[in-house]
């Protein structure tokens, strides 16, 4: 197959496919801007008092800003992952028709991933242009000749090229991974499904993650010894691994939560909507893990940040009551936490957008069964209620688990608090409620496609 043919077959599609391309390109474009911004911040050398923000001026704080920007790009990339699934059933049917005409299994995966790679490349190129234009637009200096952002620094060209090329490649890999359970045959599309329901083993991941996270911090004379460089680095690695395991445990654990909630709904639910939602949760318990992953990761990070902030506040109170004080203004540290919480909020918004795409996609994918239910007399409000039950019932316990895991990370970090650190229930409640509200809004918007998807015409297609 020639590259021209590959490109033609990759971009052949209907309006949903065009929407998928646009959304994939848009999300990869935003991710590109975030990563280029992170690369710019890390490229600033030495103490840089030419910037208005201390977060950019202080060499010790810039890595944190860069990491925050990289973290912002993660939910955006997760959104790209959701966008790749948009309209997937129609695309899979198209690939099946191509298989009938003689396309090999490898070629059909190549065609699907080429589409994603093309969209990703368009997005990353657009992101590069937006980054370059943005630098020009915000390059003005204030009265003291200082810059608000590091527009006077450019990351090394190889890094820029790497970001612009790596993002479409990553998007293509995500697309190929998402197709691993889809078998496109000349006779149609078969989806491999797990016959067994999820098990609660992700709980073990959370426990192991917390142990790993707490281990270096509570190791006697461990990583604090200045002459012990390698174990200190190892300690940071173990800390990071612990955080990753906790986040993975929360995301994967949502599959088990969905399955369990589905069983409970089916057993104790008395309304048609709860029965429908329960059966759907049992049939595809991993739907929640996929759609809520980015949001849950953001909530774990938010919970941990609120825990750290509370520990800092306790520390400051203790030091003030003891007559000593922190070297820098406490407000500076609180501002840093505020910045992280803004990043968490942005991530949650992006994650909710991804959820909206995933929800709309799942409704569109199941439109024939929705139309069949409508044709047999099931009211649309029952179907809408079932979608809400399906979305919200696993979310509440998953959010509790995410918030609890985040707080546990913060608790383990503060090994010797000068006074008991209270649990910031109010802030945590706001975090959970904010996440819940984001999902409710996304679910509400997603329900708009339910009406068109329950049109009886869908049964004739």
């Amino acid at each position, binding site marked *: 197959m*020639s590259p021209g043919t590959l490109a033609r077959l990759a971009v052949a599609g209907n309006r949903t496919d065009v929407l998928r391309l646009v959304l994939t390109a848009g999300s990869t474009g935003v991710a590109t801007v975030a990563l280029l911004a992170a690369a710019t911040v890390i490229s600033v050398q030495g103490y840089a008092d030419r910037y208005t923000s201390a977060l950019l001026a202080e060499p010790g704080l810039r890595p944190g800003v860069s990491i925050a920007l990289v973290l912002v790009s993660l939910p955006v990339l997760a959104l790209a992952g959701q966008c790749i699934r948009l309209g997937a059933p129609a695309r899979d049917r198209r690939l099946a*028709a191509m*298989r009938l*005409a003689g*396309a090999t*299994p490898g070629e059909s995966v190549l065609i699907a991933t080429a589409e994603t790679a093309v969209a990703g490349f368009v997005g990353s190129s657009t992101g590069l242009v937006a980054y370059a234009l943005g630098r020009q637009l915000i390059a003005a200096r204030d009265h003291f000749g200082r810059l608000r952002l590091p527009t006077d620094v450019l990351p090394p060209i190889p890094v820029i090229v790497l970001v612009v090329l790596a993002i479409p490649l990553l998007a293509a890999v995500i697309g190929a991974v998402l197709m691993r359970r889809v078998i496109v045959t*000349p006779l149609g599309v078969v989806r491999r499904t797990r016959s067994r329901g999820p098990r609660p083993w992700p709980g073990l991941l959370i426990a192991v993650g917390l142990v790993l996270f707490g281990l270096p911090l509570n190791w006697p004379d461990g990583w604090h010894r200045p002459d012990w460089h390698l174990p200190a680095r190892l300690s940071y690695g173990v800390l990071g691994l612990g955080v990753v395991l906790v986040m993975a445990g929360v995301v994967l654990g949502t599959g088990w939560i969905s399955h369990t909630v589905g069983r409970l709904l089916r057993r104790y639910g008395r309304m048609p909507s709860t029965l429908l939602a329960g059966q759907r949760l049992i049939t595809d318990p991993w739907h929640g893990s996929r759609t809520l992953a980015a949001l849950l990761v953001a909530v774990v990070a938010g919970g941990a940040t609120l825990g750290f902030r509370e520990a800092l506040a306790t520390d400051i109170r203790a030091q003030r009551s003891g007559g000593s004080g922190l070297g820098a203004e406490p407000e500076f540290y609180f501002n840093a936490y505020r910045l992280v919480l803004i990043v968490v909020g942005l991530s949650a918004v992006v994650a909710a957008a991804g959820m909206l795409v995933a929800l709309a996609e799942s409704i569109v994918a199941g439109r024939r069964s929705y139309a069949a239910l409508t044709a047999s007399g099931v009211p649309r409000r029952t179907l809408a209620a079932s979608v809400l039950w399906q979305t919200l019932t696993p979310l509440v316990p998953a959010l509790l688990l995410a918030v609890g895991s985040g707080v546990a990370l913060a608790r383990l970090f503060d090994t010797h608090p000068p006074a008991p650190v209270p649990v910031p229930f109010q802030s945590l409640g706001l975090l959970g409620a904010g996440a819940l509200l984001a999902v409710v809004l996304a679910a509400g918007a997603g329900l708009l496609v339910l009406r068109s998807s329950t049109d009886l015409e869908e049964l004739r297609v």
Partner: protein
Amino acid sequence: MEPLLNGTGITRSFGPTPALRGVDIDVAEGEIVAVTGPSGCGKSTLLHCLAGILRADSGTVTYRDQNLGLLSEAARSRLRRTEFGVLFQFGQLVPELTAVENAALPLLLAGSGRREARTVALGWLDRLGVADLADQRPGAMSGGQQQRCATARALVTGPRVLFADEPTGSLDALTGEQVLGEIVQVARAQNTAVVLVTHEAKVAAYADREVTLRDGVVDATGLGLGMRA
């Protein structure tokens, strides 16, 4: 005469349900063989096994000394786009591609240039009377026009065997007869063998030979009428 395509002792089950229970079948070069029988007797499954779309559970399918059961999925796909043509009742055209792109698809997948593939495909669309619809998408075409376009796609590579599964099943009687007549005429002209699955006696009448299946085994074999031969 040495058969072009040979199936021996083909069995195939779907879960606990046997669809084929030891079918033997030969197809000679240029021969039109109708596979008939009632619904659920295994006609389509046999066609899928012979075309390499499905693998037989046991038994062998041999095409020109190649055992299809030993070929990889990719190798069988390549065989379908070079040596075989496949024609189904519906759902075989890519709705987002134009008629000429659909017809040229096997050539494009095989690596032909777009201009060359388009020229060959246009020739086939013209031969089947739908050249004026070359730039239309399937959604804008009638069932008969779509089936002619699918026929052009099945024949565009000059296959040695054409597999047709109820090719006129979704068409009205008159259009179905026209399309089938064109398929048979082109196959005869190209010396292409045809395996024609149908449950209609008047469709089977176009064949040189008729193989009747019942409950997954060959129930009867006889000469067809070879109408329009």
